């Protein structure tokens, strides 16, 4: 592992690339640095492709660094990331960002690959005392649900916006939060997912009396 040909980035070897959902992948590669759970990295395959930001989706003590991504068919990068195999190379920036987890009780709200920073936080031992509300359109969109389901000390709620299944809230994540009578007002809320969800949940929480200072949002772009 060396500093790479792409300026300011580490060259890392892929160690695994798992399919975790329809067009969603959990890509793991050599880990060249320490980081804090919740941080992001820029990643690319060569100088011709502009680096894209990804939340780290592995724990601070995991041997490899991982990201969770879904393939954008028209994208420059993700269709190629999906083809990576063990032994291939990619380029990774140092970690940055301040969407950082803590050990205090908090509510995590995620859709799609927005669950990535919460995987990192949970794998880093920060899942105890947390409520994770995860939204998906279909059952196969609850990435890492088995992991969260078995996590001791973490309350896990899944909201299925289209369809129904036992043990899962039937409806949108915003409907679940809107109907909930036990929204904690003094805990931190961490929101990560598509921009409309982040905005609608933030507005909803504020309307329920959660101070906006307690709401942290991570955006995808």
């Amino acid at each position, binding site marked *: 592992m060396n500093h790479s040909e792409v300026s300011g980035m580490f060259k890392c070897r892929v160690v695994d690339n798992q399919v975790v959902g329809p067009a969603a992948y959990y890509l793991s590669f050599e880990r060249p640095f320490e980081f804090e759970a919740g941080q*992001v990295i*820029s990643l690319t395959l060569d100088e011709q492709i*502009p*680096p894209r*930001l990804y939340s780290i989706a592995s724990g601070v003590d995991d041997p490899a660094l991982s990201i969770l991504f879904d393939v954008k068919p028209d994208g420059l990068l993700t269709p190629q990331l999906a083809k990576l195999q063990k032994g291939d190379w990619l380029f990774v920036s140092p970690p*940055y*960002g*301040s*969407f950082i987890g803590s050990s205090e009780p908090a509510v995590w709200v995620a*859709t*799609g690959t927005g669950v990535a920073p919460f995987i990192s936080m949970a794998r880093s031992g920060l899942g105890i005392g947390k409520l994770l509300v995860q*939204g*998906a*359109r279909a059952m196969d*969109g609850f990435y890492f649900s088995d992991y969260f389901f078995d996590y001791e000390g973490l309350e896990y709620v899944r*909201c299925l*916006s*289209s369809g129904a299944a036992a043990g899962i809230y039937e409806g*949108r*994540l*915003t409907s679940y939060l809107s109907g909930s009578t036990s929204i904690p007002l003094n805990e931190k809320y961490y929101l990560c*997912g*598509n*921009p*409309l*969800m*982040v*905005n*609608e949940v*933030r*507005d909803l929480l*504020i*309307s329920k009396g959660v*101070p*906006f*200072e307690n*709401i*942290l*949002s*991570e*955006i*995808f*772009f």
Partner: protein
Amino acid sequence: MTTPSIKPWLYGKTLGELKEVAASLALPSFAAKQMADWLYKKHATDIDQFTNLSVKAREALKEHYQVGFISSSNVQTSVDGTKKYLFPTVGGKFIESAYIPDKDRATLCVSSQSGCKMGCLFCMTAKQGFQSQLSAGEILNQVRAIPEFDKLTNLVYMGMGEPLDNLANVLASLDILTSDYGYGWSPSRITVSTIGVIPAMKEFLTKSKCHLAVSLHTPFDEERRKLMPIQNVYKIKDVVEELKRWDFTKQRRVSFEYIMFKELNDTAVHVKELVKLLNGLKCRINLIRFHPIPGTPLLGSDENAVQSFKQALNDKGIVTTVRASRGQDIYAACGLLSTKGLNKPEEQDF
């Protein structure tokens, strides 16, 4: 008049891209310059108007392309003369642009995206999420399709969307606006706004000579994180540190936008920290009165606080002005643009 064909637009292509079009259709290389003349100087709306190209060349172009044009579908006029134009996009979404006449100036505020991903707490556009990137043609269409086109003196990329999240198309539109083959505007008439996407900002500063405006809104990290999620990724201190590496002492200017929120970012402590943050950078600050949006927990600073803040910054040597609120009655003012109600509901993953 709106062109209905789904063929790609020629309008919005840079000269380089027009050369590629010419080459791909085996047209002579000078055809690219001829096309640029028709598109950007003679305001042609149909390939048949390209009369100095051969009939055969025009037929070849028409087989693959259209000029492209979208009329505004609505216009609202404020009591202060500001006009808000509504445009459909090629993909069936909607965007807004604001025309702001002011004495000897006439400014158009254009959108660069339908919706926005950035999620700023105080912005109406954020509430509709993100719908689509605008092509360079769709960005420029907002300029040429309004009846006030010939009166425009300034252009600001401060409408819907984060321009530097659509950098390639924004740069292409700026190239067309400022090049001799295009509209030939001086870059000093154009300002591009950003919330501080550092890598894209560096590329913008490298490739464009237009002015830059950065949405600052508070110098404190923790406060800015609550107002602007981008702070979790790119801290304003790092944005400013990067800007200090560039030369703003000549024609290109950098300014900072600062919306005034009551008892949140309008104190003497904020003045002190702003002075510290911007130390050594030639810049100016535009204070903006907050235009409340539905459900917001934020309040605008009162007029005394705005004026005191302005005076305090000026006293510390930072040129500071208060931006006039324009078009507030038609929701055309800063932070109020939204087409949420017009977009068809899409299947969401939540």
